[in-house]
């Protein structure tokens, strides 16, 4: 919403990482607007359910179209929007529970299609809106309200999953660096295929990881975040997998394959080879 809507009563907690992600997305969309001259209405932000999904109502400035759908289905809704109108810039915003748990089944198909959209994932390692249950990225043994004796499942490594599935653009970022993150999101939007920007976006109420991510020299805590070095070969799948062996959370582009055509490009190629029949002609194939 472009100005304060008194009726809309949802608030993120103070310090929530999602504020930074929202700012970064606004920056990226404004950059795109300035670069392409296309109006803000050319963007569609598709959101799932959870704290992350509310981002679509909290965007400030000129407004994109939004679709605040149902839990876990951001990707297939975005698929429908994009294939209906390939000229639109389609962005999915989702949390780790929405994207990787209930919505996990939609990842592999979009990767195989190389659907030309950009997904921005706010990973806080917890279900926040339902008050602190474990998510796929919650650490093994971590105590949450739904794992009172410690989590029994290993934590998922989302970046490895994306690479394994063949996502053609994989980046990792941190909500506390909105300008840097905006740059990653912009690159993801410009990428001609399926892009995922996986963002560490801490939950100050149920899983405050700020200190662990940024480190604390006074306490002798080394930061988990590390910058992807300039010499990293993001065009190499094996280099991408290799880079993830380093502990911690990378910041930067891990993998980028620009050679693979997107679904809409493949569709356009196919349509060149097929001559559509009119309804009248189709009916006549049943005539006798």
């Amino acid at each position, binding site marked *: 919403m472009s100005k304060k809507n008194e009726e809309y009563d949802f608030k993120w907690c103070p310090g929530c990482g999602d504020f930074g992600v929202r700012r970064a997305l606004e920056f990226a969309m404004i950059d795109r607007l300035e670069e392409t001259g296309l109006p803000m209405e050319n963007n569609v932000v598709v959101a799932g359910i959870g704290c992350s999904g509310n981002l679509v109502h909290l965007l400030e400035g000129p407004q994109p179209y939004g679709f605040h759908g149902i839990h876990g289905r951001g990707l297939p*809704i975005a698929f429908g929007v994009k294939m209906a109108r390939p000229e639109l810039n389609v962005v999915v915003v989702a949390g780790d529970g929405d994207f990787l748990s209930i919505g996990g089944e939609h990842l592999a198909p979009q990767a195989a299609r190389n659907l030309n959209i950009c997904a921005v994932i706010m990973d806080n390692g917890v279900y926040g809106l339902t008050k602190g249950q474990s998510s796929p990225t919650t650490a093994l043994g971590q105590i949450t309200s739904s794992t009172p004796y410690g989590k029994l499942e290993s934590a998922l490594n989302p970046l490895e999953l994306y690479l394994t599935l063949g996502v053609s653009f994989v980046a990792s970022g941190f909500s506390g660096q909105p300008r840097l993150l905006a740059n990653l999101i912009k690159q993801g939007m410009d990428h001609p295929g399926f892009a995922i920007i996986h963002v560490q976006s801490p939950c100050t109420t149920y899983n405050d990881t700020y200190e662990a991510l940024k480190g604390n020299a006074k306490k002798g805590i080394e930061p988990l975040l590390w910058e992807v070095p300039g010499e990293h070969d993001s065009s190499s799948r094996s280099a991408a997998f290799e880079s993830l062996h380093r502990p911690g959370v990378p910041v930067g582009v891990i993998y980028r394959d620009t050679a693979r055509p997107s679904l809409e490009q493949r569709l356009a190629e196919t349509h060149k080879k097929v001559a559509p029949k009119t309804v009248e002609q189709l009916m006549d194939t049943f005539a006798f």
Partner: protein
Amino acid sequence: MQMPDFVVRFAGEGGQGVVTSAEGLAQAATQVGYHALTFATFPSQILGGPTWTQSRISTTPVLSPGDAADVLVAFNREAYDSHKDEVREGGVIIYNSSDFQLEEDPQSVGLAIDDLAKSTGNARAANMVVIGALAHLVNMPQIYLEEFVTKRFRRGRAEDEQIITSNIAALTLGREQIASSGFVVGELAPPLIPEGKQLLLKGNEALSLGALAAGLDLYVGYPISPATTILVFMERNLVGPGKFAYQVSSEIESITAILGAGFAGKKAMTATAGPGFSLMSEGLGLAWMAEIPLVVVDVQRGGPATGLPTKTEQSDLMACMFPAHGDVKLPVIAVGSVEECFYGAIKALNWAERYQGPVILMTEMSLAERAQNIPKPDLSRVLVEHRQVYQGHNGYHRYQGYELSPMPIPGNPGAYVANGSEHDEMGDTTHLPSRHVQMTERRFSKIKLLEENEYERENPQESIVLMPWGGSKGPAREAYNVLMEQGLGIGWYYTMFLNPVPPRMLEELKQKEVVIVPELNYQGQFASILRSYGVRAQAITQYTGLPFKVSDLVKRVTEITRSQQKEMVRA
């Protein structure tokens, strides 16, 4: 006396020619001007398994597959044993003597189907041996069949003439072998050639063509019997600039993808059957809530869960009308014939555009797989509707007021959030009681835009009426015709609009003593809905996985009518 129609059942193992014989007979008959209907039922497996089909050839439009067969063609022993009682008195059984031998059965005649076909040098002409034999039984001129064969196989290939010759030889061999047996069934009356061009096609094909005629832009689906043929049709034919057809990974993807496309301004549709429909539940609620035009086709099959994937039933009505949690009641159109598949699809897409929301188009296995001749639709008379599009500036309140409002299209001014959470006029989430009241009333008010006044009505003065829905229309109509001849005093009502029901029709139905509703489910689902509207409805149910037989309906409608008449006299 000449026979006005001719019913043949073909039974055997999948792959023996059960389907090609039935379809060949229907095609040959329609080509010379008969009306034809072919009903098929398959086992749920790729190859083989007990399969049967039934073709009905008639001088007048055919409404049902026919109760009892004039002829049974049994391709194997199992088929003979399971279907021999379906042959009427005086009928004939042709059994495949290449496959098995029968002891003396005065009603049966052996035909060496496979051997005769092979002797023509074309083993694939087995169905022509059968058709030749059948033609003899009803004295159908050989020239009809030869014309059909020539037309069917002349495709500009070098081997055309050889294929035509062997097929005609097969027809002749079949005819001669039956002629030498001395069996006859009767003489089929000559065709009364229907006016105008005809198409011979299956329900799912007619439905797909209707959707294209209504301007469908985007189709997304997942394979499921008996809806798969719609996906296959769309993948092949919904192509070209601005069009998109795609097989996705689940029915959850189907419904959410068409939600995205409907939001983006396109006419979008998917088709599925029971299990897939269940997976779409939440997405349908979202379409209702966020006011997104789309069409979901439910090709009903039998039973809950996996149920009977290749059998027919009408047991999804409650699920279609109330598919989701919360206050939701979706518009439902249920088609009752192959021709209605075409026009029902157009209406469903028009409704979705008109009221900006999801519409359910119900059909069923017995229509989906039924081949029938229909008059070729005149596209210049098809009315295609488009949604009201917002054409203003940014800052628009998309969900304002208590009634339908124009819908912005992404890419253009009027950006808003389509929201599945309860929302205010801008689309932002809210929990205000007054807003939930407004939006709930807004969503339900739009249904009024779909009230139509088209319905069938005969003898409206009668206080007892027969009112089928969906695919039970055909057998019910035939039963009604029989009952009229017998002088039973009842009326006839029918509509494909199950929600909203045409208001004028509903008012009339409320005046009736009894509205008899034949439907293929255990609970009497439509009768129960009608009762909730204050109609004295009584269901005739059947849940065998097969369509109604006309004779059963005649008997049961008579029973209900007689007992009601007695009560009325007593009162």
